[in-house]
């Protein structure tokens, strides 16, 4: 058995940033475990640009963004194992992993940082009637085929769901010579960024069919066509609007879910709204010394925020190892009206932290609403936003001076108000 101060599961942007910040916080006995054959996570397949605007003030592609962190990990000589799959973590912080050379490895960690990222909602979750012919992929799988393996999955494509990966793939496949016939979105609005709708669809005259879904898949061996229909306000397909659209490929871009099998098995409490672990403002989960960051915690739109969040997890894990965390007391953060969830769910009562970030998503489209923060029913913050949508992660700061002004404080609530 091996003993380690910090074991990081996942070598994507979250795992890399956590490792680097833990190192700078004074712990060098760090091991990153990554199941793929290279570091960088999902960024390796995201060859489009638009990463790093917040952190580096320039627009990088995914692989360029990843390399900046991978280079630092090499410079600092932080140890990692590739093609090593973590299969179990236990409550007493054993990490069980497997690779071809060493077989099963058992590592006793002082702290564990979960950075396993997210996965796409699979097609089984969709429930479209019809056969299950080949030619149906999640958008991310298609992205991997095209961008890593250099192989075009089909020539005539329909995309279901207007998430960003689907939009990005609509452009990618078009540029590679495929015909993308349409993107169908069951909701009356797209969850994708405006920029992607304009630059990935409008630029190439690819229609975005809002309030449309696929009601049937045709074809035996390979997909041949789909039936597309408009939906009513209750999202029920309207029979008379059905349309037969030929295609040899169907891409699904219907959402991402944090990858938390390991977390669940270890008995860590999961937030049903995010499908990620419940954490406090140190990003510590319900098991002391186990931290989480990046898409395993909640799905982020921008990798820049993933890196920031992961730095906090790395730093706190290092402090845990060095026994220098000050306080365990915490205040509950409540997701109030209009707010679907908040991360974190608790704020640590630590007077040395001037402010704590709360990230959240709203549960619908809200125009000209106010974001309000209440400390035990008293408003501390009230700011109007022109628009809030479920597709964009929002953030607010909780200032320590507000907390200091309320000695009896119990809960902090984030909510939306009309005025």
């Amino acid at each position, binding site marked *: 058995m091996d003993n380690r101060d910090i074991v990081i599961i996942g070598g994507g942007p979250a795992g890399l940033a956590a490792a680097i910040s833990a190192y700078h916080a004074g712990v060098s006995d760090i091991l990153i475990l990554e199941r793929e054959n290279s570091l960088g996570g999902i960024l*390796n397949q995201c*060859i*489009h*640009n638009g990463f790093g605007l917040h952190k580096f003030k320039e*627009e*990088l*592609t995914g*692989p*360029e963004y990843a*390399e900046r962190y991978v280079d630092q990990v090499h410079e600092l000589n932080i140890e990692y194992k590739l093609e090593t799959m973590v299969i179990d973590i236990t409550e007493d912080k054993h990490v069980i992993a497997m690779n071809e050379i060493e077989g099963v490895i058992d590592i006793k960690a002082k702290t564990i940082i979960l950075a396993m990222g997210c996965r796409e909602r699979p097609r089984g979750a969709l429930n479209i009637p019809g056969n299950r012919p080949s030619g149906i992929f999640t958008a991310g799988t298609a992205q991997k085929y*095209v*961008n*890593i*393996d*250099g192989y075009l999955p089909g020539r005539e494509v329909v995309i279901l769901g207007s998430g960003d990966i689907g939009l990005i793939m609509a452009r990618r496949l078009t*540029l*590679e010579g495929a015909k993308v016939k349409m993107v169908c979105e069951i909701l009356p609005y797209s969850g994708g*960024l*405006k*920029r992607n*709708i*304009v*630059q990935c669809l*409008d*630029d190439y005259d690819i229609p975005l069919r809002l309030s449309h879904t696929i009601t049937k898949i045709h074809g035996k061996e390979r997909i041949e066509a789909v039936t597309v229909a408009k939906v009513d306000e209750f999202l029920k397909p309207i029979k008379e609007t059905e349309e037969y659209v030929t295609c040899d490929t169907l891409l699904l871009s219907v959402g991402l879910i944090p990858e938390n099998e390991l977390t669940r098995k270890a008995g860590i409490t999961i937030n049903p709204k995010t499908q990620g672990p419940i954490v406090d403002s140190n990003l510590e989960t319900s098991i002391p010394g186990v931290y989480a960051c990046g898409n395993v915690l909640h799905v982020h739109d921008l990798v820049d925020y993933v890196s920031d969040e992961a730095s906090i997890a790395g730093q706190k894990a290092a402090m845990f190892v060095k026994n220098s965390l000050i306080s365990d007391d915490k205040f509950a953060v409540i997701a109030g009206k209009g707010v679907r969830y908040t991360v974190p769910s608790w704020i640590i009562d630590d007077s040395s932290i001037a402010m704590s970030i709360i990230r959240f998503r709203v549960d619908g489209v809200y125009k000209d609403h106010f974001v309000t923060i209440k400390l035990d029913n008293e408003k501390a913050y009230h700011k109007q936003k*022109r*628009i809030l*949508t479920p*597709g*964009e992660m929002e953030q607010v700061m909780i200032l320590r001076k507000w907390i200091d002004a309320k000695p009896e404080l119990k809960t902090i609530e984030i909510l939306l108000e009309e005025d």
Partner: protein
Amino acid sequence: MEKRQLTCINCPLGCQLEVVIDKGEIVSIENYGCQRGIEYAKKEIANPKRTVTSILPVIGGELPMVSVKTRTDIPKDKISECMHCLKDLKVGAPVKIGDVIVKNIGNTGVDIIATKKVDKKND
């Protein structure tokens, strides 16, 4: 007179800008939520530009493909020409981030550069 609809991409409101153009000149812009919408419409009409990203096969590399991009953005109407120039192109390993793969693609004055490191395959 030509009427064009543009979606402003500068914030999640995504205002549907109504632009009237006469002989290439903007006559009016309507339906913008703020000044940034006007700037966006002006740029999109006068000289829309995009960064193009793609992949190319690598010969003798540890990975089959290398990702590439135009170093800066290029005029939107040059995108398909740019993709055409990249067709059938192959790159020899090793490649580093920033290596120039094609100089002055499609006469845009912009180079195609690698966005990923691909080492030589050791055999």
